[in-house]
């Protein structure tokens, strides 16, 4: 706080690099304080970081990286958890731990791809519909959004994915198609209330272009809830895509995916329980991690750093 006040009384030029660095560090400290007030957020962040690092370094950190694909070793098939295979092996003798770590890659990739397409598209449409509220454009965009929001997302995603070829790419397409409307709706409300604010009217009067008004005047005011939603959505996207892969509409074998491993293992219950339980636990842990970290991020953004 003090650094900010100082900067007001001093000319900006005097503010040395050190000072800026110090202010940055101080802000980071405040962000971290807001985030870590809830200890569970820190646990969530730790889980997320561990999973991301495991996924990136999968070929290095897993004991049997070759087990991530088509690999058969009947001598070691269906072994319960032991020292050499901590989560046991599946009916083909592949190490379950290795396959779980490799399927984290797919789960993270889906979340990344889905959100990085759905969010910009949704935000853009919401921005346009909100700014041109009351016009035909608004009606078309928002009624389309209503339609997509009117069916539970997983069902429409299932229906879409089923009509396409079952693979990773198409499951991403299906989930993305279901995801943008949420962002459109959030941004729409914000943009519609912004568009009558004085700063927008002022910009219009000075002859600023529509693009300038949309992206430089309105957009920055709508971003905070969008980021909050992104933080909370990662876990949901992973959950939905795991559900798709559970019914066989995601990544196809031999490439591992979490949902697919659970449904595979379910065929061999209760004898080979480790084939189901460990992938299931992995799903719970990854979603839990992202949810907890997302909660922390929300607290951080909502309390704000002044």
């Amino acid at each position, binding site marked *: 706080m003090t650094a900010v006040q100082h900067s007001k009384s001093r000319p900006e030029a005097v503010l040395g690099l050190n000072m800026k660095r110090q202010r940055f560090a101080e802000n980071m400290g405040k962000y971290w304080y807001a985030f870590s007030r809830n200890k*569970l957020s820190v646990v969530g962040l730790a889980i997320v970081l561990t999973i991301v690092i495991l996924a990136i370094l999968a070929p290095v950190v897993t004991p049997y990286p070759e087990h991530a694909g088509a690999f058969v070793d009947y001598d070691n098939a269906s072994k319960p958890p032991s020292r050499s295979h901590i989560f046991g092996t599946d009916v083909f003798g592949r190490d379950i731990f290795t396959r779980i770590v490799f399927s984290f890659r797919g789960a993270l990739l889906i979340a990344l791809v889905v959100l990085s397409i759905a969010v910009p598209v949704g935000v853009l449409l919401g921005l346009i519909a909100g700014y041109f509220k009351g016009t035909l454009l608004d009606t078309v965009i928002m*009624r*389309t959004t*209503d*339609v*997509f929001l*009117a*069916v*539970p*997302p*997983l*069902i*429409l995603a*299932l*229906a*879409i994915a*089923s*009509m*396409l070829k079952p693979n990773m790419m198409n499951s991403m397409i299906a989930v993305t198609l279901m995801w943008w409307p949420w962002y459109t709706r959030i941004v729409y409300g914000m943009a519609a209330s912004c568009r009558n604010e004085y700063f927008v009217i002022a910009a219009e009067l000075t002859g600023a272009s529509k693009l300038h008004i949309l992206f430089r005047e309105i957009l920055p005011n709508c971003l905070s809830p969008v980021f909050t939603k992104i933080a909370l959505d990662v*876990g949901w996207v992973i*959950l939905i895509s*795991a*559900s798709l892969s*559970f*019914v*066989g*509409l995601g990544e196809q074998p031999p490439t591992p995916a979490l*949902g697919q491993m*659970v*449904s595979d293992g*379910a065929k061999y*219950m*209760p004898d080979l*329980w480790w084939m*189901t*339980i460990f992938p*299931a636990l992995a*799903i*719970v842990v990854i*979603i*839990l991690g992202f*949810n*907890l970290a997302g909660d922390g991020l929300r607290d951080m953004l909502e309390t704000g750093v002044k």
Partner: protein
Amino acid sequence: MDLRSFLLRRVFHSIFVVVGISIVIFCIARLVPGDPARMALGEEAPDEVVERLRQEMHLDKPIYEQYYYWLTGVLRGDFGRSLVTHQPVLQDIKETLPATMEIALVAGVIMVVLSIILGSIAAWYRDTVIDGIIRVMAYFGVAIPGFVVATVFILVFGYYWHVLPVLGRLSSNISVPPRVTGLLLVDSLIAGNMVAFKDALLHLLLPASSVAMASTFQAARITRSSMVDNMQRDFVAAERGYGIPERRIALRYLLKPSLIPTVSVLGLSLANIIETSFLVELIFNWPGISRYGMQAILSKDLNAISGVVVIAGLGFAVANVIVDLVVANLDPRIRLGGVKGA
């Protein structure tokens, strides 16, 4: 705004939305590569038979004409024939819907009762170990997908403990009560068959709890925080001042206003319930509409898929209206016009 115009507006909105869904689903179904007629008849069918079916299904017409035929059919309740069961889709839906509604109703009861109890306990013992345990359970409850819950339930209750039945709606040695409503619980009561009633209820417990799990914990959290908020209010302080016992304040005056957010959250989780039941029915081999829909999805049965998605949208819309009405009923401050207009 009065009740009638509110309902009217919602009904119009719902009709619009369901028509919209039908367009989306229809377009996707028809734009995917592959000939539906060929898929219906299989690879070996002679070409002229396939051609005849194509004409029967109006597949030789442009897409907007196809949609017209399809929509007018749907409005008459004709979704076409299922490629899997070879029955009209509507009849399949009629047969499978009651089983799903049974799960949804029992799940709803579990959700409401359990979330209120858990939420109240957490609020009563706030900031103690009990509150903490319920909070941690809530975090896990939300993070566990329905299909994982269902799978684990089957493993634990079905294979290890053998305490609850895990497959189907009734044990095979019990005669099915005569069909009146299609809801086995109701039918067996009408028939006065308590054995069947108990058996049907036991069969329902696991699937319904798997469906209810995530939303229950979410609603319990909300109930807790709204109760804790309300505890600081003046009306509670006044009641305390009159010397009304704490327990009575909590049960009689605190509960009702604290339930408004709970009901809203339960309303929001409707989508979640429908989705989860799709996978859960598949796992428990439950002969409901979701399992029917999943089979249709897995075998690319386009008529059945469209039917199920439209019905899901319709059910979702109806349930949403009901939730709005319940919320308005609980909270006199909310005027109906403000519910969705905000």
